[in-house]
């Protein structure tokens, strides 16, 4: 397991007002988090703890349960059993889930974007929805778009973008807003080498500024470079710590 050296490199996150995790609680904690589809156990009881400044890589082959775990942790799926808490707030119980979501930025494996909004609209929407649409919003948008090579595509709709460009838009949406936990589900699929390097820098910067990162991937190379801890998962079960 490779220990990453967390240090700010991109400057993309430095202007954002970070919402720090509450004292004495982990950024992410799950207890017995389970998901079953009838007799099929997609995720066996999962107990995790990720602290500030830590990048946990959840690794495994296709169909091992990584995306199910990410969707459960981010509140997209309801658990069959167990609890997931982000900065001490349950992601599945309203109204606590609102606070949990304000701490959580998620880049899903299939970019979640509105078909009728441009790349630039998405950044403005997310920033405003999280209360950070200040005077410097345009500058931050431009900074992110340039860093991710999206500046020429700012006025494009998602349907007019390639898979990689949509992935970059989803990443930009996650970064334009403050967060304590960044969940990246297969983030490098479809990305060019330059963008992968930028993403590595972003992860390192996030760790260096007290945030936590949960990474779902089957790319050993990417995980080796950024993760501080690795878990392997197969058939829904954690097989190695």
């Amino acid at each position, binding site marked *: 397991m490779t220990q990453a050296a967390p240090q700010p490199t991109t400057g993309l996150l430095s202007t954002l007002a970070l919402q720090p995790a509450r004292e004495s609680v982990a950024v992410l904690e799950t207890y017995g988090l389970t998901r079953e589809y009838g007799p099929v156990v997609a995720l066996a009881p999962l107990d995790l703890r990720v602290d500030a400044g830590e990048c946990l890589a959840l690794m495994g082959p296709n169909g091992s349960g990584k995306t199910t775990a990410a969707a459960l942790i*981010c*509140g*997209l799926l309801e658990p069959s059993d167990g609890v997931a808490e982000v900065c001490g707030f349950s992601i599945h119980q*309203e109204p606590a*889930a*609102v606070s949990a*979501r*304000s701490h959580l930025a*998620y880049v*899903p494996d299939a970019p*979640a*974007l*509105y*078909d*009728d*909004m441009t790349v*630039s*609209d*998405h950044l*403005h*929407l*997310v*920033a*405003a*929805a*999280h*209360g950070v*649409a*200040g005077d410097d*919003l345009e500058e931050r948008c431009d900074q992110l778009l340039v860093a991710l090579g999206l500046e020429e595509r700012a*006025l494009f*709709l998602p*349907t*007019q973008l390639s898979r990689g460009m949509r992935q970059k838009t*989803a990443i930009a*949406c996650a970064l334009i807003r403050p967060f304590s936990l960044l969940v990246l589900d297969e983030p490098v699929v479809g990305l060019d080498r330059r963008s992968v390097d930028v993403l590595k820098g972003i992860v390192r910067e996030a760790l260096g500024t007290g945030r936590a990162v949960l990474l779902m991937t089957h790319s050993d190379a990417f995980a080796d470079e950024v993760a501080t801890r690795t878990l392997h998962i197969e058939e829904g079960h954690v097989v190695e710590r």
Partner: protein
Amino acid sequence: MSVEARDVLAARRELAPGKSVLEHAEAIYIAVLTVGILGSILLGVWHGLGPFLLDLIRPYRVIVGVPAVFLIGLAVLRFSTWQGFVSFSEADCAHLLTAPVPRAGLVWPRLRNAALLLGFVGAATGAVASLAAGIHMAHLGGVVQGAAAGLALGLLLVAAGWQVQRLPRVAVWVLRLTMPALVLAGVLVLGSRTEGVGRQAVLWSGPWGWALLPFNAGNRVSGLAGLGLLGTLAVGGWVSLSRTAGSCSLETFRARARTRARMVAGLYSLDSRAVVKARRESRSARWQVRLRLRVPRHTGLVVPWRGALNLLRSPVRLIWSAALGGGAILILAAAPGRPGSLLGGSVALYLAAGSLLEPLRLEADAPAVSRVLLPWSYGKVLWLHCLLPAVILIVVGSAALAGGWAAGLVEGSVVAGAFVLLIPVVAVMVLAAGLSARRGGGIPTSILTLSGGDPVGGGVVIILLWAVGWALLAIAAVAVGVYALGSSATASSGAVSAAVGLSTLALVLRRVLVASSR
């Protein structure tokens, strides 16, 4: 190595033979039986009502005829911008059209069949129209002229549609010129109502008029001339079809195949929203209104801001919905005691609200997106989507009430009560439309199961109730509320009690909407 298209098609037929002769015979038998039964019924009706109907139609045949033919032509051209007369399946696009086979050989049989079919339909329609126009069977020449005009028009429509299908730039121009063409249709209607020069100008203004010249009683020469012009164009169209059959791009066929497949899948799964989306996405790549709107700093305004962006980028929908909503409120206020006005106004207002809620439908299409991008619960996002349509309808409704009062359409005794009722009426309509829209277009399996298990045919009622239940509730509540305004001894007391009732209903609907989950 090039392969003969005819051989490929023959091999394909051999591998996928299609229907047997017996199956074709069965289909023909059923068709003949159906046509025979329906024909007998129609003939009976015709004997009773024919002369009356002829008398009714005859004075309007040119008024209706030329604009009608023009609009049919426009509809065919619009259809060709996203589908057209020649289509292949996605599998054909992947395997057949990418094979080293001359494309013209694959396209021409379909193009020819479409032209012949539409020509036949046109000829039959022309012959029937000749009879309906009073050209007696004894004047066989007149009927033949009518049939010939229909045949030529059918061929011409296929030829024009094909050019739109194969040339993307032409398709874009068809879309751009649709509104001016609709205005022209209005001019044709007005021109048709005049006598003398105006009417002649309409009849000679283009193929849509030439096709009607043979029906122009008392002028055989102009009929033949129109037929000659139309025939010449049709022959030219046929030649262009045969010469350009191979010149449509694979990209065009693939896009249309994808759209068709998605629409058919939507129809089979009874998902109206999927059909609408497939149709809409077929043109989204060509049309995009580029507009930016300053993002609000207040987080509660973010979702309405997104809605405003969507509506401003679809100005036709915005204008149409606002006009419909304003008109509906005016109708309700102008005659609050009349059942026709209550029903028409309520239905129109519900439709306007539903149309303005398109951003909410987009949210329901991809419910996971708001979970990833926005900090609020799904139900709250849906509720926030209702704010902008409500504000729009309240503003246009206020303007309509004020304008109607100034113009004397709304009585002075009613106008104050109408203003009191405006907000609760709009709230109920928008929230009910939102509750209906949040479900998407697909009928849930539970409803299908429930309706399928009903042996006495009540299944259709169950599905209909599911589909329009919220609409019925809102329309009934608003109609009763507005009726109270019109029937109460003092309009203000009726308005206040109706406003209280509708406000309570709106609060309940809001609670249900906010409790929505994905």
